[in-house]
């Protein structure tokens, strides 16, 4: 699987779609005259950790937003687990199993830590408003199960039980990142999107987060897509890397291949770097 030719980005035909969780074909987004990204093909194999890198304004976050349904692509298709999710609403995409975190942490600040995770569980719950009013036995069981599940996840991401009634905004920065991951995990996602999960972290915290990402894949059998600026994180944890520049895919391959790719070096360091 790591043997993709750099630059071509096309799939070899013998690979069956069964092994792919997400397939994006020719995805394009145009805002009025501005093309945010153009004709991107992108695959995420099951249980892999893949990364998107690229300079600022390369269209990484736009691509994220297309996958999660915030932007409908102007052209192209996105398929999740065999379902064409192009043009789906964000909550429908969440329902189908994509969860995400945000570059600049976006928790429900004035809700408790536990409630944040419980909201994450929303798509896996069935209780309607009339159930809630009637207080049926099934809804009580569901609530109890949700609390139990949420606590389990808080423990998994390493948050102490004592903080569960704190307001999210009162947590220290690192814990807020953890809470965001717990909230994302609460929806039992198939695909977890992490938008610069180590932004603002010191080297020690970054290493912890990197280990944690690897562990998530191993223990929860998750598939993870990363956006990262920190090359060390990307190189260390991901199997495949896609490089975007000016809204286009300029390279794809293993960390080693990417490191050696002249176009990538050029995009990051400028033209002189390659010619020198």
């Amino acid at each position: 699987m790591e043997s993709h030719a750099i630059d071509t980005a096309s799939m070899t035909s013998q690979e069956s779609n069964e092994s792919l969780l997400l397939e994006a074909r020719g995805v394009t987004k145009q805002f009025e005259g501005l093309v945010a990204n153009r004709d991107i093909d992108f695959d995420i194999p099951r249980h892999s950790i893949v990364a998107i890198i690229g300079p600022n304004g390369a269209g990484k976050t736009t691509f994220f937003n297309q996958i999660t349904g915030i932007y409908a692509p102007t052209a192209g298709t996105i398929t999740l687990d065999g379902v064409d999710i192009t043009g789906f609403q964000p909550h429908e995409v969440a329902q189908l199993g994509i969860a995400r975190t945000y570059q600049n942490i976006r928790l429900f600040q004035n809700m408790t830590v536990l409630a944040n995770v419980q909201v994450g569980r929303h798509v896996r719950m069935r209780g309607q408003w009339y159930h809630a009013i009637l207080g049926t036995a099934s809804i009580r069981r569901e609530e109890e199960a949700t609390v139990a599940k949420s606590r389990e996840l808080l423990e998994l991401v390493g948050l102490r039980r004592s903080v569960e009634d704190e307001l999210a905004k009162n947590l220290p920065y690192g814990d807020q990142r953890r809470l965001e991951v717990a909230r994302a995990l609460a929806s039992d996602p198939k695909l977890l999107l992490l938008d610069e999960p180590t932004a603002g972290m010191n080297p020690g915290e970054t290493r912890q987060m990197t280990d944690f990402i690897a562990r998530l894949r191993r223990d929860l059998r998750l598939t993870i897509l990363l956006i990262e600026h920190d090359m060390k994180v990307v190189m260390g944890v991901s199997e495949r890397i896609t490089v975007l520049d000016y809204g286009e895919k300029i390279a794809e391959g293993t960390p080693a291949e990417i490191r050696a790719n002249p176009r990538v070096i050029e995009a990051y360091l400028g033209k002189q770097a390659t010619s020198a």
Partner: protein
Amino acid sequence: MNDGRGLLRRALWFGFISGALVLYLITVGIVLAFSARNTITGVVALGRLMLVAPPLALGFVTAAQGTGTARRLGAGLLTGLASGLILAIFLVFVSAVDIRGILVRVSPALTTFVNFDKGATTGAAINVAIAGAAGLLGAGVRVMTARFRRPLVSAALGVVIVSMLEPFLYPRLTDFGLIVIGRFLFDHKGLTVVAAIVVFAIFAVATVGWPIARRATRQRIAATDPGTQATIRGMTLLVLILFLLALPQIAGAFLSQVLVFVGLYTLLALGLNIVVGYAGLLDLGYVAFYAVGSYLTALLTSPISALHLGLPFWIALPIVILGAALTGLFIGAPVLRLRGDYLAIVTLGFGEISRILFLSDALKPWFGGAQGILSVPPLLGVNHISVPILGWELSGPTLTYYPLLFFCAVAAFVAYRLKYSRVGRAWNAMREDEDVAQATGVNTVNHKLLAFALGASVGCLGGAVFVTHLASVFPGTFSILVSITVLSIIILGGMGSIPGVVVGSLALIGLPELLREFAEFKLLVYGGVLVVMMVARPEGLVPDVTRRRELHEAEAAEPVEALPSSEGA
């Protein structure tokens, strides 16, 4: 050094604010309106307290900062003196120049009252002394430890409030044959000196004792087994219900009427609380649902309405609720994509549109235009005067009080259950960050519509009950003021808090009814109260637990930065 000068400026600035407040109260006419109400007969009238309150309060605020007890006390004194000086200048000025042409309320009766009938110069001097003492007292209260401050403040407020209740307490005590107590407590529309001392002592002791007793009781309950705890909870609820049921019998006809208004607004606020407090959708057109509830009920139940149906109330009710929920969807749908300010403006428009529609000539055959709909039958029984129920004779306001109580209980129950459910959390998440909520899987469109529909259904209940109380409905009732008042209740009580809604309507609807002199200043006082609340206690009187933390944790982290003192000075 710097601190000293800062404190001086602060004291003078607050003194200036206090003086301005006092002048405002005087020229608007509130002081004179309350000059006849005694708080403690022969000692102090309510009007006088209003003159003393600003220097007292701002002396308190001034002393919040600064180092050294003496300095802080001095600053408070200075605030009071500055305030008194402004009043003094005003008094001397009006004694020389007649300004009644501009400020009609500055009458000789007023100046005589403020001057203690001693002439302008002496009166001014006395007022400076009183204001200075008030400022010093305020600072003193601030400087003392909370252990003394709390009982002192609550006891003082207790005396004022009990004295205000005189017009209602005295006749009721007489009715119950307790005229002895009435005579002991009250004299000439105010408390007697002895009674004031007794009331003061009772409140002070209660303030000290209450938390201790509560903690002890809690501990004792916590020590018992779950079964007993459930029984205790049940008993508490039962006592509360019995109390609420007996309340109109104790309170008498007039107070029951007040309770009906309080109940009506509690119901409306419970509904709006779902929309604003839970889902964070600022709806300024809530009156529309109240109007729809009223008109639909009138239309269906009145025998002389356009429909000529004359349905019984309880058969009409489901149709009314359905109609209101549909109206909620109808209003909610177009504003789905709007946020914050835009939503507020559009809903404000919808509120006005509804009133104008009900008033319009085009719909006159249905809603009767300005004449409205008459002959709405009562909710219980056949006439609006009295109904025998289980050997009891319900009459007057209690005919509406009990149904309202029932509906309030239902609405509170529904609101409570929703709050701690999947739906309630989704609403809160939407309030916090709509985009993230949606990306987390919340169908924001459905949840917004649900909030509007449920809020509308509860609001229409208020209209449905109230139209049977008045036996008629007119478009004039449904002014924007209703929306604003309901919103104010929620803000005052605490956003998203169910007990807060009750306290809010007691304070904003009940109190003004009790203080009839307030009637013409009601909106003025509303505005003032809201401004003070936003500055001093933005989470409301009985805040939601999480919200209290949200607004006060930050203060715990860094010392309270009180009102900006240098601003504009």
